């Protein structure tokens, strides 16, 4: 059936699949209906798709603006268990279309014309206020409460003053292409999803600055960031979206996750090309959509490789980005003036990545616009990285390859902004943030004592002062040093709650000595492999363990090295005390020493004034000899020794018994 003939029930299903797909589970979602997305849903041109939706809705509510019918249908739907999407979606979609095309505050005019092209009236249609706001709240209930976020988390907030139209206006503020652009903004500012304290006001201000530089395509985001009437909704929306963002970009039409397009630097000959990640169960090839329909992606293990290689990497791609799509999938290369590459274990060539990892060698592809600043920073930092002039002619025009880019620790000097964006937890960039530190990732803004964060202020700030507050101490005002990063870490902050204020923005974090009272999950899960399939986790080895050692008494005269003797001829063991440790820790005293052979140590033979002397060593008393066999080491040791002069009578008698046993008598 052509979409032109779809009824509202069909539209409801289609709209739910597109805007509230299970693929968006846990994410902040908006019902940002626009003609382009309707076009892709319906398979019609944008105008026809919009008209098809409006026609279906008209059949339900017109003539007479019978919103009550949709209201009743929604009540029935909820009463019957809310199975399937709410029947209100098509009508609400039309209100969003109206909000998107409203001028100044004229919402009802566009709405009326969408419902009846001949309606030139103004003002609120009858019963709009009785039903529409409730339908929005029902939609929020369906997503957040009934489905528990399984199809997304609604960003439908109470509209404040604009109690009737506010809901629709909110949803029209962020369309699917805007969402994708928003995610690019998040990547640009180095937002680490789910790990950072989200400062809504700071995000909104930074978005306003960034969107302004995006030209036409950033206009709606600019409005979202700067329209006072949207301020509250914008901050809630941005915070929700940022918190639930998974770090990946989106297809501009479907909103589904897109894959990053990567650069591949082949070594011999030196050549820069494109590859894209390929999932399992994917076909062996994929034809790309226009305008790249002359290119096919060929499977190469877990990567797609374009064929023919006519899809070259050129300067425009690097400067403006590149989008490819085919067979329902999307791939993006996001424009950036600095692109890190790291050795890929599958390709065994260098492949572009999103971030630089400390302690790993990288290449850095830099644009001519930042080349000088990057090289200058590399020199200041004392890095071994150097531009490879021989590679330049193999790179796109205006791009340069820096080799041996390797960072062992956080930079001592503020990097250029483009490099800051690559270092993840490094500071600076476009917003106030905490950077570095020994963060306990799973606990939010919690840092381990000895590893507190630093405070990074935006590069453009004129007055880099901020205030540090903590309970029990007067606030401290400080100025950022060496540009725009303050090493709060140098103060060895004790455990407690802290707040850093700058320009009305408050960053909160906590210092702890530790949290884990018992080993957390994951301890011992990586093991070192050894012989015969056995493994070790630290010092704990699979297989039988050694029994607890025994001990013997240390005589009052002390000793360094002695020989323990037992009642049987095989009972001989050298016993030593680690006097070398005393050279570190000072004198240590021992009342007993450990023994590792399984026998009752009866005597300890130690040299006293040049003569081997036997001391009673058994913890509970001397044990009689068990054998009378002469000869051997045991016998020689006994015969060459004498009993200690302060031995008890019992000990002396038993020593005689050992001597007799040693002589074979």
């Amino acid at each position, binding site marked *: 059936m052509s979409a032109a003939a779809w009824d509202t029930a069909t539209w409801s299903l289609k709209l739910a699949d597109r805007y509230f797909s299970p693929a968006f589970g846990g994410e902040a979602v908006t019902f940002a209906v626009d003609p382009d997305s309707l076009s892709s849903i319906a398979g019609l041109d944008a105008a026809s798709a919009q008209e098809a939706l409006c026609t279906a809705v008209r059949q339900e509510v017109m003539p007479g603006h019978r919103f009550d019918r949709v209201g009743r249908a929604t009540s029935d739907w909820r009463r019957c268990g809310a199975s399937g999407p709410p029947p209100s979606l098509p009508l609400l979609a039309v209100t969003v279309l109206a909000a998107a095309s409203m001028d100044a505050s004229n919402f009802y005019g566009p709405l009326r014309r969408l419902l009846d092209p001949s309606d030139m009236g103004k003002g609120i249609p009858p019963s709009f206020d009785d039903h529409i706001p409730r339908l929005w709240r029902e939609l929020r209930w369906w997503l957040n409460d009934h489905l528990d976020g399984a199809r997304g988390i609604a960003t439908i907030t109470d509209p404040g003053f604009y109690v009737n139209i506010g809901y629709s206006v909110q949803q029209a503020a962020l369309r699917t292409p805007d969402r994708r652009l928003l995610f690019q903004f998040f990547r640009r500012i180095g937002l680490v999803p789910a790990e950072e304290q989200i400062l809504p006001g700071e995000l909104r201000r930074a978005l306003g600055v960034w969107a302004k530089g995006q030209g036409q395509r950033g206009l709606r985001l600019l409005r979202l960031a700067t329209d006072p009437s949207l301020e509250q909704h914008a901050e809630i929306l941005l915070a929700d979206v940022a918190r639930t963002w998974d770090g990946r970009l989106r297809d501009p039409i479907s909103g589904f996750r897109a894959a990053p397009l990567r650069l591949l630097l082949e070594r011999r000959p030196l050549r820069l090309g494109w590859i894209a990640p390929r999932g399992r169960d994917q076909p062996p090839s994929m034809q790309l959509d226009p305008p790249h329909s002359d290119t096919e992606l060929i499977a190469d293990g877990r990567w797609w490789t374009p064929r023919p290689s006519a899809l070259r990497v050129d300067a425009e791609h690097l400067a403006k980005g590149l989008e490819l799509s085919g067979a329902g999938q999307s791939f993006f290369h996001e424009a950036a003036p600095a692109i890190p590459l790291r050795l890929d274990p599958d390709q065994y060539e260098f492949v572009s990545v999103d971030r630089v990892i400390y302690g790993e060698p990288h290449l850095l592809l830099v644009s001519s616009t930042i080349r000088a600043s990057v090289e200058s920073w590399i020199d200041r930092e004392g890095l071994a990285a150097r531009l490879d002039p021989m590679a330049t002619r193999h790179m796109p025009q205006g791009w340069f390859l820096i080799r041996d880019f390797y960072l062992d620790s956080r930079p001592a000097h503020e990097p250029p902004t483009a490099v800051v964006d690559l270092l993840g937890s490094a500071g600076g960039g476009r917003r106030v943030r905490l950077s570095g530190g020994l963060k306990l990732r799973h606990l939010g803004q919690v840092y381990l004592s000895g590893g507190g964060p630093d405070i990074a202020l935006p590069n453009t700030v004129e007055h880099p002062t901020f205030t540090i507050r903590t309970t029990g101490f007067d606030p401290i005002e400080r100025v950022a040093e060496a540009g725009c990063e303050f090493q709060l870490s140098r103060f060895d902050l004790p455990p407690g709650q802290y707040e850093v204020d700058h320009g009305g923005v408050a960053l909160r974090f906590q210092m702890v000595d530790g949290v884990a009272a018992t080993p957390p999950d994951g301890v011992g*899960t990586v093991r070192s492999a050894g012989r015969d399939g056995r493994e*070790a986790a630290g010092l704990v080895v699979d297989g039988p363990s050694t029994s607890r050692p025994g001990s013997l008494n240390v005589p009052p005269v002390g000793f360094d090295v002695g020989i323990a003797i037992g009642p049987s001829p095989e009972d001989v063991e050298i016993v030593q005390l*680690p*006097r070398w440790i005393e050279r*570190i820790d000072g004198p240590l005293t021992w009342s007993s020493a450990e023994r590792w052979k399984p026998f009752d140590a009866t005597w300890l033979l130690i040299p006293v004034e040049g003569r081997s002397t036997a001391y009673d060593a058994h913890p509970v008393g001397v044990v009689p000899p068990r054998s009378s066999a002469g000869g051997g080491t045991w016998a020689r040791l006994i015969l060459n020794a004498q009993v200690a002069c302060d031995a008890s009578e019992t000990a002396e008698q038993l020593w005689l018994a050992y001597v007799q046993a040693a002589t074979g008598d």
Partner: protein
Amino acid sequence: MIELTTGSPSVGDDLLRWASEVGSGHWEHLSEAAAQRSGRSPVQPRRAWIIASELAALGHIDVDWDARRWSVAPPCLALSPGMGLCAYLAGWRTQSLNRRLDDALDEDLDLYSFSISQGEAPRATFVKAASPERLADLAEQLHIRMVYDPARHLADLVDHCSATALPLSAGPPNDDPVERFDEVTFGWTTGAKPFSPGLHSFALHGMKVFRVLDDSGDWHVVDRADGQLAVLRGRGDVMCWHKQSQDAQHPRALSAPGRISLPALVERAATSASGLLPLFKNGRRIYLNVDRDVATTLASSLGLVLTRTHEIDIEKD
């Protein structure tokens, strides 16, 4: 030189504490944490893999370099022969464990604790007890395992492969510089064609790689340690065992040339005999308190012949 510690936590101390709080993760996270902490150290920052290797040798963590994952080892109190009932803590080690240890020591006069600084590596924490039973009781009190003679068990685990089992590979690219391992000096010299059998190193894709050229003219992929041991197989002048001095002032020890890399499990086995990282003296790496049996097992597993030699002086350079 090893020395008693009273100062601030080292990079290794803080990194072990952080790793213990986190439990496990990807190499990138550990690397980043090491970079964060190293950047604040007054000394030259060390590479994350070096710090991680020390933690692994001390039995605190295990690293799977292929999968790029790590985990902290289960906590234990380890007692080695010849340590005079001085056991040391290994594995998971947080402030809470340190506090529980302090509490236990306060209550028991038969226990005495001391720590030994190891530069930027984590300090070694020892507990001296009046009897093995008291150590076992302490381990139970702390809810950690008691491990006896870890060096012997780890040495028994070592499984070193022979050169013939190493994967084949291509030789060095034509015009790149190649270095050859010198089996006499244990250093590296410039290699020249035609390449002679032995261990070679060259840069591939910007990273240093190692390859062994065998007598048949085949190249094999190796890591540095395996490669060096493959070409030194059968030698009796590489690993030495030093007997203890008569007055026990100088411990028995196992030593190897500082320029020779040893497999991670061998490092851990040798280190666990004392709980201390090896000293470096006169160009050799010295593992303290390794007994002759363990040393013989390790040398044999590596295809080397152990040489018995003079006492080692842990003071004199």
